[in-house]
């Protein structure tokens, strides 16, 4: 008797979690190997939880993925913790995006704006920094609305929501980390939810390598500033991998 074939969206307990729908490569091969679906899932809520405080290093994490998006695609920064800097977007090669910075006076308005953006757009990238922690129902509403579209939805809450449950299918915890006696700086990522639950190891993603020529990191006289190039991450082209 043949095994009945179940729909791939139905998860059986002995399976490793896998993504349903399209994914977009993160640009970091080490991270791609760990996340089910080998990339950021489109149309799902993704939580990036900082270890200490937010506003640190999410955009660097997302930079290879944003660089691979189609030109003229829309990126919306919703209530970020600080003012964004246009020059940084130019420097990191993200200048063919269209950027919009949305602020709001109240947290309820910001949540409403997030819902409207997901509802009315199909291929946008939304990075949302909620000022106050969102409840489970609110997160679920965001996820359900995003499921019907192909938006990339990143939620960067405060550090303390780490222990709360959330309906997001992918949750990462990250902190900046320097390795190799300061010659390399990057992020240490721990996948809380979404990957193989048995391993709780931390991934290290290097984002910056010190130029080999400079001997000491700080010299008292003027030195010619080395050109700081971002690490050329072999980011895959924006080929959507359907599962």
């Amino acid at each position, binding site marked *: 008797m043949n095994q009945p074939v179940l729909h791939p969206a139905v998860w059986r307990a002995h399976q490793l979690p896998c993504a349903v729908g399209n994914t977009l490569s993160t640009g970091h091969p080490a991270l791609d190997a760990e996340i089910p679906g080998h990339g950021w899932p489109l149309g799902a809520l993704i939580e990036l939880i900082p270890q200490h405080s937010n*506003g640190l290093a999410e955009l660097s994490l997302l930079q290879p993925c944003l660089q691979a998006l189609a030109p003229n695609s829309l990126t919306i920064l919703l209530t970020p913790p600080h003012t964004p*800097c246009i*020059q*940084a977007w130019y420097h990191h090669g993200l200048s063919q995006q269209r950027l919009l910075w949305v602020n709001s006076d109240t947290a309820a308005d910001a949540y409403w*704006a997030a819902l409207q953006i997901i509802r009315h757009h199909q291929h946008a990238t939304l990075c949302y920094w909620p000022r106050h922690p969102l409840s489970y129902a609110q997160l679920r509403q965001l996820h359900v609305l995003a499921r019907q579209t192909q938006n990339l939805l990143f939620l960067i809450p405060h550090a303390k929501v780490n222990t709360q449950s959330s309906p997001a299918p992918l949750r990462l915890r990250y902190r*900046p980390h*320097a390795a190799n006696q300061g010659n390399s700086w990057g992020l240490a990522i721990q996948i809380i939810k979404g990957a193989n639950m048995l391993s709780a190891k931390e991934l290290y993603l290097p984002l910056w390598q010190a130029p080999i020529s400079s001997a000491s990191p*700080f010299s008292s006289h*003027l030195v010619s500033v080395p050109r700081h190039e971002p690490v050329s991450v072999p980011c895959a082209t924006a080929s959507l991998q359907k599962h």
Partner: protein
Amino acid sequence: MSLYLCLALPPHYKNTSAVLTALSQRMQAYTPQLCFIQAHALLLKLQASLVLFGGHLALWRRIHTDLQAFNQNLSAPWQSALAPTAWGAYLLACAQPTHKRCLRLSTLQQRLDRLPINVLALSAQQSAWLADLACHSLAQLRQLPRAGLAQRGLPQLLQQLDQAYGLENSVFEWLRPAPYFTHRLELDFSTRHSATLIHALAQQIELLTVWLQQQQLACDQLWLSLQHDHRHVAPTQLAIALSRSSYLPSDFMPVLSEKLASVALAKPVYAITLEVRHTHERSVRSASLLPDDPHTLQAQEQFLFDKLAARLGAHNLRYPQAQASHIPEQVNNWPSYTQQRLHSINSNNLTLQPLRPYWLLNPAIELATLGHSPSLHGQALQLIQGPERVQSAWWQEQSHEARDYYIAQDPHHTRYWIYRLAKQADRWFLHGIFG
């Protein structure tokens, strides 16, 4: 062949002119040819609208449904009649019973013959004189010699009768739509509830769209004035800007409801005035067969931005527009979004940029120093990368500023962008965070 509809109120009904003016604005949706045939009666010429509305019967029913909807609060005793001549319709409408239709001239003439002469506006003396002559109906009046009637002071009546019976043509000057639109609606009770205000505003928007439809115009800015109960409180003025030229209610209503829901009203509102100051020619909107058409997507995006701007305020939506300068905080210019197309960052035409942090702090925060090194939150920062000199306006003595920027790292490995002035080497400022 022509067809006229006359809607009349009894001559001594109160407030006739205001009611008729309001009704005429509503009836302009059915035909552009309207006029006030008398002070208490409205005439519509329906011949040109028959094909669009699917025949005289459908149009009659539609107009009457609309009249009942309009009449809900007033309960005015309307009388109406449909006839091939204008004055015939008027005379039929003035007589009882109400709501008559006739389509052929012969039928009209028979019906008119049976009418009593008090439908005509006669003075008391003239009606007494005609009664003495035993002239009680219009048929008998027409049998009297015309020269005698004209001599006795009734020439206008003869002309009216001729026009009613279809023997002469009648010419009317049709109402023209006003060159600008202003509408004031008084609510039944003063309220702060946004749902009530939106309901009242919906009626005004309908009138606005009818007016726009008549002249084939479109507008993209509305001005609302909400008048409050208290005499010394100034009316609240709201301006609503839309990113594309709109002429349908579905273009206006979502943005308006968001705006009204977000406005905090201190005092109750008892009247709303809707005004449109600038209109422009309507451009043809073409629908696309494919769902991913870039025009449709762009229209949807602008609709989204309109809604966001209406609720959050236009100052909360910002797009990047870099200014050419050496100083980082001057380059970082974020003007408010004002209903234009959003372009990519590339359109700023900046050249290749040096390394900059993702987040800038504006203004830069001064850091305390531990020993000789800068510190943040009590922890000393370690300098990672050497100084980058940024100077500005070296040709001016006053505003010349030279800064040395460094990349610093704290014990949690977070990277900051700090600077110190070239002249005062002991003060450190935090200008950016590497995200």
